[in-house]
């Protein structure tokens, strides 16, 4: 029986296939280089513009004249081709793609490493570089080596203040930074079924941190009802008990709030180990944890209190921001003394809107903590939105179990 990756790509693990791409997207960072490659290829019109998207999220609104000029050229190009275009402030590419665009069984390729996020829908989704994207614009196709699959069997369910982010930090730690290299991950078992769509997006998002090419869930009733909210009627995907290359187990009921210290993503430990480390900044957002549920859990904990450290909250998309406004979550966050940024990547990549200074220490809900990423000479810890809330209130790393009320 084929794995989900083999089924969707249409070949056995190890084989090479050429596949039509159902969704190809790029952002303002990778799009600039893709456009350059496109011009060098001498192309003028994409093969299938209705399957393409250009989403400005990385450095938006532009931080310097140089950035603005590069973006202006890319904006004109994207609009001319007729591809879907989302300007700065619309949100992070992965979030926008998750808002009813990607369906189970599709082949999704993004010019961004976290494109594996869309595997949460039972799609085969992976990241490529800019020149590959230019070739996809030109032909509508790309080649793949069909990956072997590593199954992560999720048992039990999350409890207390532990959340999907903690489970993600845990499996990346268990696999190691290259434990999934060249492989697709499949999240299976009863625990996988117990997770909400937002939780699954968080887990799939971090697959690349273990080196994996994809991180996939089978579409089930949860997927069906989520997509029904966007007007899609999709079928569930049957799990056929394929032969996995490797299978590991993660018991969700054992997962506790974790923190991953600088500068490796595979070193998660219980928050208590670093409790009391004084922080200069807390950042809540990104394609891992900038969704409504994340901001709501964060907001519920800071509601009616004051944060003790500068805290930046960036909704993953305009739809998330709108939901935060309509539900009142935004005022909890603002009243607690947080700074709210425009939907997008925010300070995640260290380019603008909250870059850290030399020697500063931060806690972030992002997915990677590589040296100097958020600021030269800075240190930062990865954690969940609730750990971020407890830490923002304390001004130092703190466990959400201490503040947590369900």
């Amino acid at each position, binding site marked *: 029986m084929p794995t989900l990756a083999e089924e969707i790509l249409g070949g056995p693990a190890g084989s090479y296939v050429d596949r039509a791409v159902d969704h190809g997207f790029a952002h303002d960072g990778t799009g600039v280089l893709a456009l350059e*490659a496109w011009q060098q290829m001498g192309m003028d019109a994409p093969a299938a513009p209705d399957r393409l998207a250009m989403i400005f999220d990385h450095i938006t609104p532009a931080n310097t004249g140089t950035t603005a000029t590069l973006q202006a050229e890319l904006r004109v190009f994207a609009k001319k081709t007729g591809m879907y275009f989302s300007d700065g402030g619309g949100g992070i590419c992965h979030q926008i793609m998750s808002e009813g665009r990607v369906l189970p069984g599709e082949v999704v390729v993004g010019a961004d490493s976290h494109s594996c996020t869309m595997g949460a829908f039972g799609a085969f989704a992976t*990241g490529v*570089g*800019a020149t*590959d994207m230019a070739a996809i614009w030109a032909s509508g196709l790309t080649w793949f*080596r069909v990956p072997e699959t590593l199954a992560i069997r999720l048992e039990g369910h999350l409890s207390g203040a532990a959340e999907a982010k903690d489970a993600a930090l845990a499996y990346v730690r268990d696999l190691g*930074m*290259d434990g999934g290299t060249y492989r697709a991950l499949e999240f299976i078992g009863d625990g996988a079924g117990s997770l909400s769509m937002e939780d699954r997006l968080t887990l799939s998002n971090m697959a690349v941190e273990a080196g994996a090419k994809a991180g996939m869930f089978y579409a089930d009733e949860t997927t069906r009802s989520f997509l029904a909210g966007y007007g899609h009627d999709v079928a569930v995907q049957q799990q056929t008990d394929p032969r996995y290359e490797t299978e590991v187990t993660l018991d969700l009921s054992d997962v506790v709030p974790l923190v991953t210290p600088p500068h490796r993503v595979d070193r998660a430990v219980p928050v208590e180990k670093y409790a009391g480390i004084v922080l200069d900044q807390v950042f809540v957002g990104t394609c891992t944890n900038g969704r409504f549920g994340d901001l709501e859990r964060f907001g519920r904990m800071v509601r009616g209190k004051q944060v003790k450290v500068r805290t930046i909250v960036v909704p993953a998309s305009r739809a998330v921001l709108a939901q935060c406004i309509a539900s009142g979550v935004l005022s909890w966050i603002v009243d607690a003394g947080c700074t709210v940024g425009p939907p997008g990547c925010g300070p995640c990549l260290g380019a603008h809107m909250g870059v850290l200074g030399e020697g500063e220490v931060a806690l972030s809900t992002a997915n990677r903590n590589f*040296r100097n990423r958020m600021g*030269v000479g800075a240190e930062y810890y990865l954690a969940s939105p609730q750990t971020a809330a407890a830490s923002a209130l304390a001004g130092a790393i703190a466990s959400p179990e201490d503040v947590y009320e369900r």
Partner: protein
Amino acid sequence: MNGRGHAVCLGADIDTDVIIAGRYLRTKDRSVWAARVLEDLDPSLAARLQGAVIVAGSNFGCGSSREQAPVALREAGVIAVIAPSFARIFFRNAINVGLPVIEAEGVPCAGGEEIAFSLDEHWVEAGGMRIPFRPLSPKMQEILAAGGLVSFWRARE
């Protein structure tokens, strides 16, 4: 395609933020990337990469999909990168920009000595040993032989 160059040894898990930091991505000026490559690891490295064969540990190029990473190495004069394993997006990007990447185990590296390789015959010569490696897929070999995906594409038309 054969090549030779002086060895530069690097460790494992070299990520693309280290290869070229996000703060240098706001330009299309390749000379900036060449000058700043691996700066956060060792600022003196960039000057030693002309004609170099990098021998790194596993998982080279992990992290972001930025194609500026292999471009920066190529522009700085790196002839090839050898490692036991690569992050897959980096691997694909390297081929697409015409930077040879060689997946080989157990290549010794002292630093400064000459390393030779043959992409056609799939071997690396280092420290008096000839070490075989797994060849690239035929499609990747064609792209690399063309000098990258842009030239490969132009030649197809």
